[in-house]
């Protein structure tokens, strides 16, 4: 563990707030120690050597020193600034939601290498993605939940344990899985889940991203998956993520300006 006075961490900066005139409090998610609150002294001064390396949405190698309260970032080296991603409003917003998810779902000082690798891979893929990033987001959500012990049960009914058949079943966020039509009739509250949605979720739970993104989704199925995952996430966190609200508003605004454009051209 972090016993020596100074140590190294490979980390993504996931959140920042200003502290005093020139300092920043940074929440980092590191490969070695999971989530850590840290302080970057003088990071707001122009010409600070930390500067852009400790901006949110940056993957950096950090040198840290043990502090009385928070550990202090003493040196930094940028590994990936995700600059292509940051030049695009939609993708930046997707990435900020991803960081928000990591921040909201993890506790401090709890190492989780698979989750860290998923985070890096996802941000990297997002930089290269040219579609709306919907599959990438769902794939990230599903696997984040898995690595943190919230893997939804998609094969057997969460009530009676019978194998789920190829028919419309029901998803219950509170119980963390799918139930069969029989159990649903016994009064459990839940939403329908279509045969295709269940198939896709099962696939994404068990494949790599390259395979996951080969799935072609109709808009209705895409919406069903989004709403299902969102209801599950909301249920675990017991709140709405503001970055998701922002994402949904932005998508609405972008759609309506698309409509404006077509109307004007016609």
């Amino acid at each position, binding site marked *: 563990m972090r016993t020596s006075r100074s140590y190294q961490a490979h980390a993504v900066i996931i959140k920042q707030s200003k502290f005093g*005139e020139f300092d920043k409090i940074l929440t980092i998610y590191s490969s070695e120690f999971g989530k850590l609150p840290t302080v970057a002294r003088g*990071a*707001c001064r122009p010409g600070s050597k930390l*500067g*852009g390396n400790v*901006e949110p949405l940056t993957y950096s190698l950090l040198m840290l020193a043990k502090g009385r309260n928070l550990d202090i970032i003493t040196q930094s080296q940028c590994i990936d600034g995700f600059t292509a991603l940051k030049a695009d409003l939609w993708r930046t917003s997707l990435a900020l*939601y991803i960081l928000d998810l990591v921040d909201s779902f993890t506790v401090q000082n709890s190492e989780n290498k698979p989750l860290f690798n998923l985070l890096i891979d996802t941000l990297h893929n997002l930089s290269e993605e040219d579609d709306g990033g919907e599959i990438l987001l769902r794939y990230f959500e599903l696997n984040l939940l898995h690595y943190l012990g919230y893997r939804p049960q998609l094969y057997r009914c969460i009530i009676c344990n019978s194998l789920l058949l190829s028919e419309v079943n029901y998803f219950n966020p509170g119980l963390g899985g799918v139930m069969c039509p029989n159990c649903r009739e016994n009064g459990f509250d839940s939403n329908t889940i279509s045969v295709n949605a269940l198939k896709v979720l099962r696939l994404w739970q068990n494949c790599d991203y390259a395979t996951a993104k080969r799935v072609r989704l109709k808009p209705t199925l895409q919406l069903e998956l989004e709403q299902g995952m969102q209801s599950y996430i909301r249920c675990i966190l017991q709140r709405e993520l503001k970055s998701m*609200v922002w994402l949904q508003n932005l998508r609405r*605004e972008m759609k309506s300006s698309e409509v404006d454009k077509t109307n004007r051209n016609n």
Partner: protein
Amino acid sequence: MAVIIGPVERLVEEFSKLPGIGPKSAQRLTYHLLRSPDKDAHELAEAILSLREKIHLCPVCFGITDKELCVVCQDEGRDHSKICVVEHPSDIPPLERTGKYNGVYHVLHGAINPARGMEGDNLKIKELISRLEGDVVEEVVLATNPNLEGETTAMYLRRLIMPLGIRISRLARGLPFGADLEYADDVTLGQSIEERREF
């Protein structure tokens, strides 16, 4: 349960709320005032009160002013077809000191931060757009901070302004990424505004 806070503790507590003032400094300031002449304390108190009473937001650009319009908006010698968009009122004085900008301003009073919930509806974005639709504006200079929130805000504004057919520029990247505009040195800031880029 009520804890009685004496006047000394009370002032220490008030000072500690100010940025950059820790409990030690707050105590030092309080005891300094206790020792200084009555007149000094009265003047300080009066200055603080008049700040709150006389200063308000300019109804055009949302900068701060003690007149009806701010000095920039009421100046007919300035180029009202150029609007420079900044995050905070405190970003205006450093830009003014460069002496390289002759347009007017628009203060957003913050930046977009999706995780904090945009603070967004409070930002003066709608006001900016209606200003652009109403006035004869030829150029908007996006001078939000060169950090992630500032860039996100700039990209968002660009989306909204583009359909209006107004030229959009962004401060040049002479400034280090991750810094705060308010503390940039004048030379760097002057260069940035001269070399502003298409955005």
